[in-house]
């Protein structure tokens, strides 16, 4: 069964406009994309900084109004960007655990907000529910009356997860949930997330720029480049047998113990200019396999191998 279905979703930001002037240009942060996430699945999303990961995530939870496209959760379309309507179905865990908690509120006040606003629960009911959730995320109840600055990053992130759970969503979007944490704590949080997924029947979208982390937690991985999906496939295959040259570049660049140091790419490696996007395949400027056909038109996602899809005219074969 599908938990999330995204159809033709895109976002364009106008830039440079003033009070009375029309915007000078537009940045297409997310180009029209479609994908599905099955119930209980973890979909990993990777890509370089600025490729549109967060923009996509913010549209999915209703914090940003999509320019085009539709979002369906468990078959029900969500077409008005209203976080309160989205909130019961899909929640977000933020990258910076400390900045996502209001410094002037106690943890209890923070935890109560979704229960009060989304479900209209009474006081006793709220307290019981919070107790339940705190037990699930291994936090002590005495934390409830403290303020956010009293917690370490790992604890704060667990509070962030607890708040997302409080809304009893079907889907949780995790936007770099562990990149601000120390490695020894990172593993604690990742394992907790894996346990909660089973306990609450959740579906995850896991965004990260750390390939190894994404691979370790995901069932499927979606690779974004310049606002476009360039490759999708099962986690164990995407980095082992990358089809798209960009995925291959990512896999080759990740530092791996025992692999000698070499720059997989020696050229100017800046992303294409979002204000002046190149024609055809956006990766052509960096791609070692590029041919003139590549700049003629944007390649479509097509099936390659058994389970992978890639948007490339000259994909790697294995």
């Amino acid at each position, binding site marked *: 069964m599908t938990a999330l279905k995204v159809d033709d979703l895109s976002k364009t930001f106008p830039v440079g406009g003033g009070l009375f002037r029309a915007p000078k240009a537009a940045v297409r942060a997310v180009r029209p994309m479609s994908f599905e996430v099955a119930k209980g699945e973890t979909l990993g999303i990777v890509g370089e900084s600025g490729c549109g990961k967060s923009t996509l995530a913010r549209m999915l939870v*209703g914090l940003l109004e999509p320019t085009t496209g539709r979002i369906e959760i468990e078959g029900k379309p969500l077409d008005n960007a209203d976080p309160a309507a989205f909130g019961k179905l899909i929640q977000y865990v933020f990258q910076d655990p400390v900045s996502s*908690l209001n410094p002037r509120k106690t943890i209890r006040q923070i935890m109560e907000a979704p229960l009060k606003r989304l479900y209209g629960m009474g006081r006793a009911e709220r307290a019981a529910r919070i107790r339940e959730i705190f037990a699930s995320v291994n936090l002590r109840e005495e934390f409830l009356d403290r303020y956010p600055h009293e917690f370490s990053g790992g604890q704060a992130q667990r509070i962030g997860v607890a708040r997302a759970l409080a*809304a009893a969503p079907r889907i949780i979007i995790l936007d770099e949930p562990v990149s601000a944490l120390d490695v020894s704590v990172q*593993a*604690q949080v990742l394992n907790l997330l894996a346990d909660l997924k089973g306990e609450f029947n959740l579906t995850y979208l896991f965004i990260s720029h750390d390939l190894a982390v994404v691979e370790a937690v995901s069932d499927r991985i979606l690779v974004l480049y310049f606002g476009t999906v360039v490759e999708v496939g099962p986690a*164990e295959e995407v980095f082992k047998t990358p089809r798209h040259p960009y995925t291959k570049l990512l896999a080759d660049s990740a530092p791996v*113990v025992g692999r000698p140091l070499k*720059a997989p790419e020696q050229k100017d*490696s800046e992303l294409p200019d979002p204000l002046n996007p190149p024609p055809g395949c956006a990766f052509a400027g960096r791609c070692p396999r590029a041919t003139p056909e590549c700049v003629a038109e944007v390649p479509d996602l097509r099936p390659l191998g058994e389970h992978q899809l890639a948007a490339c005219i000259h994909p790697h074969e294995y």
Partner: protein
Amino acid sequence: MIAFLKLLFRNRLAAMGAVVLSAILILALITPLLPLADPDAIATGDRFKRPFTEGHLLGTDHLGRDLLSRLLWGTRLSLAVGIFAALIAASVGSAIGIIAGYFGGRTDNVIMRGVDMLMAFPYILLALAIVAALGPGLTNALIAVAAVNIPFFARNIRGVTVGLAGREFIDAARLAGMGHGRIILTELLPNVASTIVIAMSTTVGWMILETAGLSFLGLGSQPPQADLGSILGEARSALITAPHTSIVPGVMIFLIVMSINLLGDGVRDALDPRLRSGALTRPRAVTLVERRGNVPRADQKGLLNIQELETQFHVGPRIYRAVNQVSLHVNPGEAVGVIGESGSGKSVTALSVMGLVASPPGVITGGAVRYDSEDLLAASYDSLRAKRGRNVAYIFQDPLSTLHPLYRVGDQLIEAIQAHNRVPEAEARAKAIELFRAVRIPNPESRIRNFPHEMSGGMRQRVGIAMAMANDPDVIIADEPTTALDVTVQAQILSLLDDLRRERGLAIIFITHDFGVVAQLCDRVAVMYAGRIVEEGPTETILEHPAHPYTKKLMACVPELGGGKRRLAAIPGLPPQVHDLPPGCAFAPRCHKATDACREGEILLEGTETHTARCIHPEEELA
């Protein structure tokens, strides 16, 4: 609250302001209870009585009215009007600021352009115009003064709100189902309240002055009702013949405004979080060195040799042992990795080398740092400054923090070159272009004209490396230079550093928390935990046969590419706080091999010539 008051009264001027202001406020409050003459009772026979005459302590004015009584009633009125105007300006201005800052976009644009238009008029002119339009009178003066101060609040509060509105907790509140109104009232307002209080405490004095100004011109309070301004205004014609009639209200205005401003500045300083922690001390140019015990003798190891370094932070009664007995050396052409979690002391070790740890609160309490046998901790500031950049250079995690945002990157590089060598501009420019080429920045001739914000993170970090290379240093200390970068860019930067050390014999100390990076770049690696090196040795040995349980567990925590979906090994618990270390091994509370012997006494860093570990039950025999 008590801490706030203590901090406030530590500032003498603010305390003085508070005392004077309280006295004035009390007087104003009890004025109706005092046995004063009627302030408006005219007795033309008694005009211009000098102060201290019978029945008139401060004398009388041109209509023979008692000055003391008029002064106190006037003060009462002036204070009330000023404070009321401040409240109005603060509420309206803050509301405008919060709305503009929170909604942003078009709303913000329209509102703030309007506010800009208000601000474009000279202050007093605007107030005069408003009074002229509404007609003279105290209420209208109050409205005018409040109105001209609204833009100040609106701009201030908008600035703070814009910063807060972008914070993730606001998004979280929306996802928790809160509407805009509720977010503004319960999420934003508590966070901007202190800014509003600060802005109010620094402006209420001016508002009193402005109201007095309008009354002085006859546009404010109308006779016989008198505030301080109109008392002064009426006394104007007798300035020479009866100076006391002007001096008395003048002094009062002075006292009020001074005391409010002194107190306001004090409140601002006490509420400012940046000033709260470090008090009002300026950092020293070099880290304070107060070595107890003997300086270790030179032992001819490496080009840069850190010996038994101890760096502490003294904050109030607490002592944070950030770096504890750390010894580390690096040879020309060698890359040494320092690995550890946040708070383990990696960066403080690096910064101690060139005296860059902020003092206060940092103090180097022991050890030595030898560069070519010279003890840098004993060096003078001038000789240290000459060595910064020329002999030992740094690359930091965030290149933006070392690049000035308002100057072109090329000019900054040229300045760095000229700081150590007096070379002509043209030559320095040529060298800058050459350096850009050396760090593989494409199109160096045009790139040197870029501003930092025009470059991507990876390009900026290359500029950071070029700056570090500007004076051909022998040692580079790189503090997590690739942590914020994408993997593709990271790979390029790492291979660039690798080339530099091979081609130029550069010695590199590379601080990171990534074992993959260490494995690829470093010859040797030191693992730090709670301020100490817990294991040191050749990279391959440590990666394959870690001896310290912490090293082994830390490696297991880090997922490696190619492993597929799996459960990760985690280390239970948290790293300890370095101001409250347990006796014995700092890792004991999290270690599965810990025994009672681990929790007492000092555990030494022991092992072979090349591989050492600080553990009494090591994972591998070191002999």
